[in-house]
């Protein structure tokens, strides 16, 4: 591998990331992280002389793929005039920025106003989530040709390649072929990272961006992570990083001076995971079924809305969208949050733990409406409203009915004891069946084939397309 062609650059971690070289990096001159670079986005060069020997053997293998500047790259594909120009996708804040825009320090989350101050010539596009989803699904379907175990996110995916070396012959070649195929079939550039666990694969991908491929040989994990900044360790957010920086810690390797017990004292149960990860270990499996942190649907209004009925109609539609997504993923939320922004810019939010976890639209909307009413305590118009489902559970938590709905009804009629509970279970079961029937109809004929509940009020007021009602500022990133 090290003796590659002109197109293969094998460099040490230290060369890739100054000041990140850990204590084991110079071991026998080994270069644990290798990188293939592309000459330009979407145009990876052929790899000609990779060594025939397999570097992986029986070790777990996780491939991480990340679509470079995803939304902005799609927009540059759709309109060639945008190529080479700074492109920003988002509304209010930047959801995605092209590499030309990033040169001005613009990142996801930067307010659009600030982005335009830094780069007045940037092209700002609102974006179109269904188009991005179509591109992502295409790329993820190509990744699924390597392994059935693909865990997908918005613009990246983890592919479990463990045990597939006999099938693919050479994992690195297989991954490189994937990168070439994605570029050929979609025109998009992806970055790849290969490691023995998901954490390392993700960290290695960062070294590949944009449009490259890096991998870390089995056995090099502890040395590799040791030299990385503490902020790169999963589980270390800005707050924890601040705590550790105050303690004088800068790299992940320095975290090892703390025992698991000390890290638990510092960060609670998460400290135990952090201690493991600081040694390059991550035993989390690849879940083909996506388990998102949250499902969020929101929109703003052209004019501030003052009528409660109008807000409830939109909230019902957003709840339907979020609940349908949760049902499609097979997850059940245990927390619901409603948030809004008033016309004067002030924000308010209220959350509720769900007593009965489930994805029944009517049940979720009942909770959401209660929270909304609680929030509407000012004589001001509302500029933005949204709902967020979270704390998901992968498996259904609801108790299965032993005798089915008919038996429950008979039992309820025969005895007053437990009647209301049974009636509630019957009602919930019916609502679940109704939701699944509506999902099936919409799956076949489009979302607006069935409009129900308070959402009906939106029909004459909000334009629609085949994906549903066209929201002013749909959430692109969740």
């Amino acid at each position, binding site marked *: 591998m090290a003796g590659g062609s002109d197109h293969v650059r094998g460099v040490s971690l230290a060369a890739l990331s100054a000041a990140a070289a850990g204590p084991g990096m110079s071991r026998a001159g080994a270069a644990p992280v290798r990188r293939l670079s592309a000459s330009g986005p979407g145009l990876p060069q052929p790899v000609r002389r990779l060594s025939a020997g397999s570097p992986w053997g029986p070790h777990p293998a996780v491939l991480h793929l990340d679509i470079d500047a995803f939304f902005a790259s*799609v927009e540059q594909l759709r309109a060639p005039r945008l190529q080479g120009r700074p492109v920003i996708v988002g509304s209010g804040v930047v959801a995605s920025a092209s590499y030309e825009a990033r040169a001005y320090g613009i990142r996801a989350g930067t307010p659009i106003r600030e982005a335009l101050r830094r780069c007045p010539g940037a092209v700002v*596009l609102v974006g179109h989530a269904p188009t991005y989803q179509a591109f992502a699904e295409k790329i993820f379907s190509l990744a699924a040709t390597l392994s059935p175990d693909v865990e997908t996110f918005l613009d990246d995916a983890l592919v479990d390649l463990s045990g597939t070396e006999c099938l693919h012959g050479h994992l690195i070649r297989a991954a490189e072929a994937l990168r070439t195929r994605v570029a050929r079939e979609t025109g998009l550039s992806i970055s790849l990272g290969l490691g023995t666990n998901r954490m390392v694969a993700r960290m290695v991908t960062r070294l590949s961006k944009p449009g490259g491929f890096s991998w870390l040989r089995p056995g090099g994990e502890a040395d590799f992570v040791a030299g990385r900044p503490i902020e790169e360790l999963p589980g270390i957010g800005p707050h924890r990083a601040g705590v550790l920086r105050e303690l004088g810690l800068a790299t992940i390797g320095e975290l090892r001076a703390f025992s698991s017990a000390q890290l638990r004292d510092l960060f609670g149960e998460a400290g135990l995971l952090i201690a493991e990860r600081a040694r390059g270990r991550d035993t989390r499996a690849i879940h083909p079924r996506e388990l998102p942190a949250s499902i969020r649907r929101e929109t703003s209004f052209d004019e501030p809305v003052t009528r409660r009925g109008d807000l409830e109609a939109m909230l019902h539609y957003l709840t339907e969208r979020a609940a349908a997504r949760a049902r499609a993923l097979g997850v059940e939320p245990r927390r619901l949050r409603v948030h809004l922004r008033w016309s004067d810019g002030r924000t308010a939010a209220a959350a509720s733990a769900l007593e009965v976890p489930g994805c029944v639209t009517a049940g979720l909307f009942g909770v959401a409406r209660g929270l909304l009413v609680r929030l509407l305590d000012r004589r001001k118009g509302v500029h933005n409203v949204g709902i967020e489902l979270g704390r998901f559970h992968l498996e259904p938590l609801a108790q299965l009915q032993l005798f089915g709905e008919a038996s429950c009804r008979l039992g309820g009629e025969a005895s007053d004891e437990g009647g209301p509970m049974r009636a509630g279970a019957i009602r919930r079961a019916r609502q679940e069946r109704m939701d699944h029937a509506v999902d099936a109809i919409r799956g*076949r004929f489009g979302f607006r084939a069935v409009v129900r509940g308070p959402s009906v009020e939106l029909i004459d007021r909000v334009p629609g397309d085949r994906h549903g009602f066209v929201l002013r500022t749909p959430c692109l990133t969740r």
Partner: protein
Amino acid sequence: MHWERLDEPIKVRADFRGGEITPLLFRRGAQALRIVSVNSRWMDREGKRSMHYFSVTAESGDVYQLRFDTGDLTWRAEAIMYEG
């Protein structure tokens, strides 16, 4: 620069060879527009119908987004990109 929604039915001359759809020319009103390049293509679904999308550059230099619906075999000009 922004996309403006058109959503107009159009007639398209297209090549369906090799399992790939390539629009060649489309008629918008009285105007026939030759397609000089297909910039990108992607597929989406509406229920069980496949929707094929194309970003194309017409010989006028304008960039259009076209859609082919496999359900009723119709074409639409979905949007046009404008400067400004």
